[in-house]
C-alpha cells in the first residue's frame, strides 16, 4: 500500500505507465474481439467496414499513447498495423486469411512486448519491417532506408543565391518525393514580402542525420506525432469508465469488512439491551440496526461489483489460442461460448488465466481429433469446444468441454499401475482419474508437445484452483469428449468462515473448503499403524490433528476431551481435521500475508474478528497435501 506522501512526483511516471498499460489492455481486448469477428467474416466473404474502423481506431490510439510514454517500438508496430488497415480500408489491398493471420501475429507480438515491458522482462524482438503480412503495400515502393517511418517539418526559404545553385522549390519537392511522401505543403508570406514554404514529409530516412537537409535555406525539424491527414483522425468515443487501482479498491473493501464486523458486534449488543430497555424503544433500535444491516449488505455488494469483470474477455483470448492451434495442427474447431457476461473477481480471473489456457490447449491438442479421424468415427469434421461460465450462488463455475476422443482410461490406468500410483484391481472412476492426471509429473504423453507441454501442467492447474479455494472436477467418455469444470468463489476478498480454536489459538477456516463438521469422542479414535482414523459414515476417515502440525501445546489441551472435526475433500481424498472447538461462524475479510517471514505452510492469510487481533486463516488444501505427505512417509511409501 502506498501512503499519500509516497505518491509524490517520483512515481508519477509509474502511475502514468499503469494507465498506459491499462488502456492498451482495453484496446487489445477490443482488437481481439474485432479480429475474431473479422476472421469469421473473411471466411464468409463479407466484411463489415465498421469493424475495420474500430480496429483502426484502436491501433491509432495505441500508437499515440505509446509515443507519449516513449515506447518507440510499440508505436512503430501499431503504426505498421494501422498502415495495413488503412490500405484495406481504402481498398488498396484485400483482406484475406493470410493478412488476418499477420494482424493476429502482430497483435500477439504487441501483447507480449507490453507484458514484458510491464514485468521488465527481456523484450520480444520486432520482426523485420519487410514481414509481408503487416507490410502496407505502398510503403515499400520508392522509399529508401529501413528506419522507422518518421515525420519531419521542413521549412524552405528560397533566395536568388540558392536558385543560382539550382536549389528551388521544384528541386526540393522532387528530392522530398524521392525519399518519402509529402503530407502537406503551405506557403507563408513573411514580413518584407519574403516567401517561405512549410512541408510535412513522412519518410524512413532520418533527415536529422543528413546535413544536406539542414543547410542553407532549409530547416528540418522532427515531429513526434502527426495525425493522419488523409482521413480526419478518428474521434475516440468519450467514455464513462473510471480506472481504479485494485489496491485502492482493496482498501475500500477492508473498510467495508470492518463495518461488517462492527455491525455483528452491534447486533449482539442490541440483543443484550433487550432486557434493559422498554419494548418500544428497543424495537426502534432493533429496526434501525436491521435497516443498517441491509444497507451495509448493499454497500458491500456494490463495492464488490466494482472488482468484477466479465469473463468474456478471457474467452476471447482463448478463442485466439484455439484458432492458432487449429491452424497449426490442421484441425477444425468451432468454439461455443456461453455466459461471457458472467462476472468474476478481477484478482481471481487473472490467476485462473494460465490454468484455463492449459485446459483449452489440452482439449484442442489431445481431445479433439483431426477431421478425417472424426469423419471415420461418424462425427462432424469440426470439433466442438464449449466454454461456459455460470454463476451459482456465491460461486462461479467455468466449464471447458470438447467433443473429442475422451481420455484413454486404459492407458492412464496402465501407466498408473506401472508407476505404483494405482493398486491392481482398483477401478478407475472420474474422480480418481482426475487425481492421477493431476499428479505431478504424470502424463500419458511422454513427449512434451508444443501446445500443451509448456507452461503449467495439470498439477499446477489443480493446485492453483485449490489455492483460490476452488474445486476442479472432471468427466470423460470415450469418443464423446472430456469436460473440466472449475468452481471458484465469486470473490476472494470476503469469505464465510468457521472460527475454530486449538490450544488457545483462534483460526478461521474458509467454509467453502469444509464439507461437514461433527464432534468426536476421544475413544472413537482408532490407531491404524501410526495413523489415526475415525469411523465416519461407514468408512474410515483419516484424522489430522492441527495441534500436532502446528506444534501447539497448552496446559488446557487434553486428549480426553471431546473435540470437533471438520471434513475436507471427498471420497478417497477426505480428511478430518481435528481442532479443539468450532466456536462460531462469521463473514471475514481476507487479507494476504505479504512478508515471506510469516508465510508458512497451512496458513493462507489473515483476518480479524473485530477486536484488532490478527486471526490466521487456514490453508485447507495445503493442510490436506501435508497430511497426505505425512501419511506416505509414515507408511514408508
Amino acid at each position, binding site marked *: 500500500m502506498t501512503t499519500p506522501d509516497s505518491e509524490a512526483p517520483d512515481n508519477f511516471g509509474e502511475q502514468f505507465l499503469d494507465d498506459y498499460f491499462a488502456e492498451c489492455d482495453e484496446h487489445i481486448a477490443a482488437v481481439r474481439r474485432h479480429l475474431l469477428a473479422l476472421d469469421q467474416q473473411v471466411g464468409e466473404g463479407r466484411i463489415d467496414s465498421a469493424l475495420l474502423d474500430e480496429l483502426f481506431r484502436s491501433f491509432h490510439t495505441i500508437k499515440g499513447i505509446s509515443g507519449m510514454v516513449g515506447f518507440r517500438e510499440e508505436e512503430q508496430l501499431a503504426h505498421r498495423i494501422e498502415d495495413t488497415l488503412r490500405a484495406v480500408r481504402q481498398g488498396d489491398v484485400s483482406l484475406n486469411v493470410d493478412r488476418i493471420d499477420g494482424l493476429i501475429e502482430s497483435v500477439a507480438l504487441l501483447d507480449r512486448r507490453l507484458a514484458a515491458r510491464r514485468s521488465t522482462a527481456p523484450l520480444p524482438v520486432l520482426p523485420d519491417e519487410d514481414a509481408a503480412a503487416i507490410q502496407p503495400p505502398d510503403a515499400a515502393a520508392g522509399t529508401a532506408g529501413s528506419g522507422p517511418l518518421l515525420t519531419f517539418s521542413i521549412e524552405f526559404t528560397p533566395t536568388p543565391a540558392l536558385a543560382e545553385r539550382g536549389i528551388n522549390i521544384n528541386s526540393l519537392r522532387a528530392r522530398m518525393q524521392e525519399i518519402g511522401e509529402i503530407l502537406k505543403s503551405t506557403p507563408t508570406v513573411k514580413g518584407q514580402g519574403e516567401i517561405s514554404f512549410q512541408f510535412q514529409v513522412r519518410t524512413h530516412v532520418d533527415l536529422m542525420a543528413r546535413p544536406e537537409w539542414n543547410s542553407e535555406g532549409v530547416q528540418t525539424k522532427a515531429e513526434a506525432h502527426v495525425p493522419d491527414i488523409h482521413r480526419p483522425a478518428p474521434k475516440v468515443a468519450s467514455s464513462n469508465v473510471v480506472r481504479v487501482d485494485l489496491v485502492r479498491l482493496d482498501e475500500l473493501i477492508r473498510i467495508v469488512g470492518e463495518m461488517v464486523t462492527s455491525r455483528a458486534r452491534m447486533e449482539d449488543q442490541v440483543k443484550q439491551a433487550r432486557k434493559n430497555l422498554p419494548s418500544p424503544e428497543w424495537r426502534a433500535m432493533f429496526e434501525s440496526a436491521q435497516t443498517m444491516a441491509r444497507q451495509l449488505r448493499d454497500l458491500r455488494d456494490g463495492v464488490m461489483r466494482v472488482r468484477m469483470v466479465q469473463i468474456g474477455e478471457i474467452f476471447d483470448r482463448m478463442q485466439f489460442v484455439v484458432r492458432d492451434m487449429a491452424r497449426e495442427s490442421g484441425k477444425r474447431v468451432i468454439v461455443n461460448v456461453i455466459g461471457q457476461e458472467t462476472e468474476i473477481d478481477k484478482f481471481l480471473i487473472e490467476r485462473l488465466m494460465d490454468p484455463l489456457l492449459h485446459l483449452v490447449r489440452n482439449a484442442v491438442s489431445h481431445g479433439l481429433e483431426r477431421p478425417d479421424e472424426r469423419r471415420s468415427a461418424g462425427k462432424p469434421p469440426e470439433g466442438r469446444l464449449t466454454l461456459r461460465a455460470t454463476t451459482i450462488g456465491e460461486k462461479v463455475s467455468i466449464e471447458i468441454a470438447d467433443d473429442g476422443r475422451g481420455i484413454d482410461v486404459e492407458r492412464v490406468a496402465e501407466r498408473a499401475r506401472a508407476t505404483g500410483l494405482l493398486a491392481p484391481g482398483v477401478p478407475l472412476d472420474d474422480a480418481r482419474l482426475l487425481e492421477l492426471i493431476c499428479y505431478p509429473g504424470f502424463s500419458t504423453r511422454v513427449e512434451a508437445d508444443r501446445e500443451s507441454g509448456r507452461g503449467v501442467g495439470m498439477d499446477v492447474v489443480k493446485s492453483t484452483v485449490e489455492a483460490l479455494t476452488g474445486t476442479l472436477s472432471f468427466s470423460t467418455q470415450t469418443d464423446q469428449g472430456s469436460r473440466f469444470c472449475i468452481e471458484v468463489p465469486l470473490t476472494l476478498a470476503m469469505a464465510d468462515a468457521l472460527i475454530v480454536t486449538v490450544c488457545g489459538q483462534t483460526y478461521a477456516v474458509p467454509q467453502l473448503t469444509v464439507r461437514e463438521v461433527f464432534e468426536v469422542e476421544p475413544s472413537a479414535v482408532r490407531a491404524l499403524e501410526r495413523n489415526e482414523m475415525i469411523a465416519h459414515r461407514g468408512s474410515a476417515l483419516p484424522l489430522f490433528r492441527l495441534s500436532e502440525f502446528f506444534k501447539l501445546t497448552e496446559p488446557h489441551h487434553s486428549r480426553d476431551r471431546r473435540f470437533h472435526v471438520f471434513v475436507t475433500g471427498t471420497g478417497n481424498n477426505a480428511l478430518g481435521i481435528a481442532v479443539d472447538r468450532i466456536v462460531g461462524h462469521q463473514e471475514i475479510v481476507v*487479507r494476504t500475508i505479504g*512478508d515471506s517471514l510469516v508465510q508458512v505452510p*497451512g496458513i493462507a492469510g489473515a483476518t480479524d474478528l473485530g477486536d*484488532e487481533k490478527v486471526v*490466521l486463516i487456514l490453508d485447507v488444501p495445503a493442510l490436506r497435501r501435508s497430511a497426505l505427505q505425512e501419511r506416505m512417509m509414515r507408511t514408508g511409501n
Partner: protein
Amino acid sequence: MPQATGTESFILFEIAGTTYAVRSSVVQQVQMIEHVTPVPNAIPVVEGVVHARGRVIPALNLRVRFGFPKVPFDLRSRLVVINSGGRLVGLVVDTAREFVFIPDTSIEVPPDGLSKLSGKYLDGIATIKERLILILNIEQVIDVSGLEDMAAELPS
C-alpha cells in the same frame, strides 16, 4: 534541539539493559504491544504477526535475534515498526521512549573486540553523556534470511 548538518535523529530502545538506536527516518511508528498472534512453524525470531497501518506484518523479537532469553511482555514493552524500502517489520523491544539527535562526530566505528556481541548489525557506537549507545544497521537486523535453518523442525 536544532538539527545541524552532520546530525541525525534516532529512536532509542532497550534490550536486556543495553541501549540501541535506530535512525528515526526508518521508524514508521512505535506502539504498545497488545496482542501478537503466533505464527505456527515460523522461525524462532518471529514473535508473530500484528496489524500495522492496515497491513499484517511480522513482529521480530530482538531479544531472540540478539541471543537474549525471552521475557513476557509488560507495560513497558514496545513494538517499533520499521519501514525498510516499503517493507514493514515490527521489532519487539523491552522499552522505547527517547528520540535524540546524535552528531556524526559522536559516532565511532565499533571496536573489533565488540564484533562478537551484536556483530555485523552494528553501524557504530555513540557516547552521549557517558552513556554508550549501539547504533543498529537496521537492514542487517531485519534480514534474517540466514536464520532460516533454525526453522529446521518444519513439519515432516
